[in-house]
């Protein structure tokens, strides 16, 4: 649990003691009141929703059907994620293309490094940020310009240095075929800002990291990080975008304008 001198009155024990919280606000009393109101409100049952019988396994008793469905249960009513690794790869590629991400499949790490080199050259990158990870380090040699490592042990994180980088190079947790998403975590992918601040985001991953569906990805979070979740996990689905101006699609609103995925194997 992180601590800072400003957080003394705001530690999680706030609700257990009688100490008043920020602004003299009686947090414990507010918590009691709200939970009491919730309990009181729920004394009257509400009927399960329309069509509650359609969802697989729903029982008329009303208790959540999803609570009794095994997590890995197939959900054929959601979009397809592929029923084989090849099928999943094809769906992933199609989705990444639709999302205007740039996607490369390369046979090995050396080819990956070459690919990265070409991309960096083509875009005239001056500085690429990266984090310590076997996959990242193995293609780093392909970067023709200077680099900046964000997670040097003992060094404070340098926001300004990262902001000045043209691209961020990261690994990922997995790639989701169903939606064309890439799952990154603050623990294994260089923190929170590396994959969102620079203008371009390059992901280096192995083909075995492709999973069919979001459910698979979410399940992997539970199993990979059981006991200690990373403080941030993010599904990245294409380059940053906005439709706020007359509903016209523009890429690169605040996050990376370019998302480049290099898949090895």
């Amino acid at each position, binding site marked *: 649990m992180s601590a800072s001198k400003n957080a003394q009155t705001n530690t999680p024990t706030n609700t257990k003691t009688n100490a008043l919280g*920020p602004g003299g606000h009686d947090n414990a009393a507010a918590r009691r009141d709200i939970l009491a109101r919730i309990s009181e409100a729920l004394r009257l049952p509400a009927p399960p929703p329309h069509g509650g019988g359609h969802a697989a396994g729903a029982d008329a008793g009303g208790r959540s059907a999803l609570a009794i469905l095994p997590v890995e249960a197939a959900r054929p009513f959601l979009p397809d994620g592929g029923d084989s690794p090849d099928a999943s790869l094809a769906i992933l590629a199609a989705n990444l293309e639709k999302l205007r991400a740039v996607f490369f499949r390369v046979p090995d790490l050396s080819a990956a490094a070459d690919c990265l080199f070409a991309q960096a050259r083509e875009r005239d990158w001056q500085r690429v940020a990266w984090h310590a990870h076997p996959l990242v380090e193995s293609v780093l040699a392909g970067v023709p310009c200077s680099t900046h490592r964000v997670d040097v042990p003992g060094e404070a994180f340098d926001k300004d240095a990262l902001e000045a980088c043209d691209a961020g190079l990261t690994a990922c947790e997995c790639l989701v075929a169903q939606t064309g998403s890439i799952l990154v975590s603050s623990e294994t992918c260089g923190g929170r800002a590396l994959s969102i601040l620079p203008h371009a985001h390059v992901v280096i991953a192995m083909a075995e990291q492709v999973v069919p569906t979001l459910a698979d990805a979410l399940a992997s979070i539970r199993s990979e990080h059981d006991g200690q979740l990373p403080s941030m996990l993010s*599904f990245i689905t294409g380059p940053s975008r906005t439709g706020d101006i007359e509903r016209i699609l523009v890429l690169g609103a605040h996050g990376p304008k370019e998302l480049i995925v290099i898949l090895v194997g």
Partner: protein
Amino acid sequence: MIAPTPGHPALASQAATDPRLAKKQFLRDAAESVRDTGHRAFVRKALGGYYTNRDAQKSRYGDWEQARDAASLAKWSAVNHLDEMLPRFVANFEAQGGVVHWARNADEARTIILALLRDAEARAVIKSKCMTSEEIHLNQALEADGYGVVESDLGEFIQQLRGEPPYHFVFPCMHVRRDEISDLFEQHLGTAPTDSPEELTMIARRHMRRLYVEADVGVTGANFLVAETGQISITENEGNARLTAALPRIHIAISGIEKVVERLDDLAVLLPMLATAGAGQQMTCYNTLYAGPKRAGECDGPEEMHLVLLDNARTAILADPEQRDSLHCIRCGACLNVCPIFKNVGGFTYGTTYQGPIGSVITPHLRGLADWNHLSGASSLCGACTDACPVRIDIHTHLLHNRRNAARTSPGRLEKLGHRFFGLVARRPWLFALGGWLFRRTLPLAKALRPPPLSAWLATRDLPPAPQESFRAAWKRRR
């Protein structure tokens, strides 16, 4: 209404002093909005692409209706076990270093946040889109206390510069033309005029980047609170929420208590459906799960993470089993996108934070039935909203329930009498037939005199001439 003027209920943080002020304002604003045919056409055009994209995404689902069942069940389960799920979420969140603050109402929420900023000696606050923060009128409070707040979401930023609340909860500036945005940026940021949406976006992007780096507090909302893992989930397209929760030293998230889901796995259904129904996308660009502040071993991230949980009359809705499911709302905005009322009167006419069909259902609960029931009345009950809702909230039926509740507690005296009288007549077929005959005979005169409510019809529509005989008379003659 195109833009709210100072003093407009949309901007007010107190309840209306004149109980019918909100309704009168609504009627005035609606009349003005529908007169502006250019504005209406612009909004309709803006939403045109949504239908196409949404239908294309829906067709990728194996069974969209079954998906709605699953989503509906996931939210029903969480909300109906909120007494268990909310504490479970809080315990898991706190175990990972997050700090939870409980706010019974908007006032407490503002007090908490202001105090957090004071304790942190904050100077600059950056925000990502959060309808709950609109509900508690946070920005006004922060600015009154001297904090510089910048909305980082492009649409919200534009609205902030215009001094307007969001027009729609997913598309905050859908009513604004690009030339207006160009003028706005020229005026406030000193940039050169342009009519390119891309250039305008880049202007905002460049402006924002320094602010992310310099802000010491980032404020976000939350789309879901995952009980099983103690994570909050934030859905967005631009990346501004990710930056808001990555770079500043302190992260404050604000969420209604009803945003809970039981399991992480529920998001496998809810995240894509939120994107499809709300924006016609398969997934939004960034769907991020936060489990507390930066961990040991992580190279960046906020040192503190606070979550303000807001009740603000949600427990009152929870206590109404008939309308409890309106708390299932995932704020996708689909109901607004399909509502013919919304498309014709626009987001500001509602005069309150939550617009459109779901807004018309919950606002009477949040702000008072007598004052705000007119929102539930301003609907033809067409049901397009209910059809569009990914979590199957029976929205249009709840509008009817609000009307019934209002008729019970604060009936219109004249209207009640009118319905009573009609009931009296309708039970007596001979009287009904006589009344009908009289109606047909006097219709030409009535058309000339135009008494209310006939006047409301005849102002813009004709009535057909009365037929010589009624059906019952014709039938009798036929036999």
